[in-house]
């Protein structure tokens, strides 16, 4: 019997995907019955999930540990404001702004992707700060004062809220599905090989720069889209907030707590972070200290994140990216 097939997706994963589809449909219908507050909160949750999924793609699957993704969060919002100023309707401007930010990421990639781990992390942060300073000089932004996306006031608050909610839900769905497809394709294994050993990856024919560049641009566009959606719900754009390092810290927290380099981990991490924000968000500085303590506890006792709870019990990673080969009888793994 020949062993020339890759095993199909486990049944448990199929059930999980089916459940996720049902949740997605339920979320799409939820505004029919949910209050404005719930819709706003869920919009924020979708945005957080987008951030986590994109940062995990970058750091967890390609080893590109960026602490400067806020550059693209801010640029997404800024591009949206500029496009609206140029006469584009606000909602199409969300997507056009994200696409333009992808162009900026392409330009930046030629510099930052030539750097190694530590240098890369620092460079991304420095670049984010530099972009924030440049954007602050734009008269439209009025320095640190910022500006508001007043064009959104043309829509009734209910319509605006519902549109942003549905756009955020759809964007999140596309990002999760797109990441799944991407990681199951050629680029998925290649990016993980680069993450594990870039030199060895090149020696087996992987164009390391091109693969990293593609991942970097996709993650940047994703963060820009999430950033623009956040602006569409918050309306006010202030450079210090939009380009704040807190975005990268949130992304890092969600991914590490959920499970770096796992597909489902960032989503779980975003849910936990959202819950912590909702429960303890009113405690000011104590809330931030609490977030730090949670991060320390996870680093010490659950380094593989929430997904580690499955793995530590000997269970397979849910929605794993692993390609498993069907082994014929007699070819079972040796002890």
């Amino acid at each position, binding site marked *: 019997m*020949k*062993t*020339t*097939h*890759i095993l199909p997706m486990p049944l448990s994963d199929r059930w999980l995907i089916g459940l996720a589809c049902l949740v997605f449909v339920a979320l799409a219908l939820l505004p029919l019955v949910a209050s404005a507050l719930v819709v706003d909160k869920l919009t924020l949750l979708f945005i957080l999930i987008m951030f986590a999924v994109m940062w995990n793609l970058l750091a967890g699957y390609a080893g590109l540990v960026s602490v400067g993704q806020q550059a693209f969060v801010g640029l997404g919002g800024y591009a949206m404001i500029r496009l609206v100023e140029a006469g584009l309707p606000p909602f199409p401007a969300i997507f056009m702004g994200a696409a333009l930010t992808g162009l900026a990421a392409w330009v930046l990639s030629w510099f930052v992707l030539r750097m190694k781990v530590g240098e890369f992390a620092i460079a991304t942060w420095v670049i984010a700060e530099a972009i924030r300073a440049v954007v602050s000089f734009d008269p439209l932004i009025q320095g640190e004062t910022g500006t508001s996306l007043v064009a959104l006031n043309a829509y009734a608050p209910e319509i605006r809220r519902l549109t942003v909610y549905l756009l955020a839900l759809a964007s999140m769905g596309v990002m999760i599905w797109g990441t799944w497809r991407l990681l199951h394709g*050629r680029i998925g*294994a*290649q990016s*993980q*090989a680069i*993450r*594990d*050993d870039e*030199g*060895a*990856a*090149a*020696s*087996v*024919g*992987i*164009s*390391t720069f091109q693969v990293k560049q593609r991942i970097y641009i996709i993650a940047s566009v994703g963060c820009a889209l999430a950033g623009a959606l956040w602006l569409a719900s918050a309306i006010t754009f202030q450079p210090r907030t939009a380009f704040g390092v807190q975005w990268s810290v949130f992304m890092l927290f969600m991914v590490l707590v959920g499970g770096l*380099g796992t597909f489902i981990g960032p989503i779980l991490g975003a849910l936990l972070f959202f819950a912590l924000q909702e429960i303890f968000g009113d405690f000011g500085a104590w809330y931030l200290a609490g977030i730090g303590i949670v991060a320390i506890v996870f680093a010490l006792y659950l380094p593989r994140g929430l997904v580690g709870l499955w793995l530590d019990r000997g269970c397979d990673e849910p929605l794993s990216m*692993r*390609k*498993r*080969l069907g*082994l014929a009888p007699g*070819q*079972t*793994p*040796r002890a």
Partner: protein
Amino acid sequence: MASMTAEPMLEARGIGKSFGALKVLHDVDLRVMPGEALGVVGPNGAGKTTLFGAMAGAFPISSGTIRLAGQNLSGSNAAERCRMGLARTHQVPRPFTGLTVFENIHVAAVAGAGLSITEATTRATGILERTGLTAYANRPAGALGLLDRKRLEVARALATGPRVVLLDEIGGGLTEAELDELIALIQGLQAEGLTIIWIEHILHALLRVVTRLACMAEGRILAEGDPRDVIAHADVQRAYLGSSPE
């Protein structure tokens, strides 16, 4: 036997490599004919692995030219050289630890040989069997022992569909029985016409495979030719084998 009138499969001419003020390779010339198995020996620090790195495109060379089947490799990076048919193994195995053994080979077949997912699966399966790794196919590569990590190095190189394979001390640390397995594998590859350059300290293993031998010391080729002649060469005796012929 390889014809000496044919074009070399791999040819290095005047290769020099410096790391800062340290010159590691001095005008090294090396050529290997299609289907030939060339052994490279020399003391530690002779520049053998650096020569492999230079030929495989792991870093730019300071001087000289490298040609693969007549094609100048200058300006091509490691990935491009691999896709052109020049594969290598590493002295210290470098598996992709987060991927399974099967995925390690599969990703090399997709990227290095340009195969589709299905074609790569077929190739990876064949290579798993050939290298004795089938039973470990679904294991994380990081969990393998030394012998299997070395097997995986060879398997991954083969998955790229090479014309030339550079083997860097793949016999080190293995038992005699394990070494016999490895030699049988390499002899099989040689019989299929694959061109091989093998760096190895275990001379008796190397001499069972190679038809020609080169000895390096201090970044230079000391002697090159028939293995017996090279071993008997006075400079080789002095620099590598630690004795001087009377």
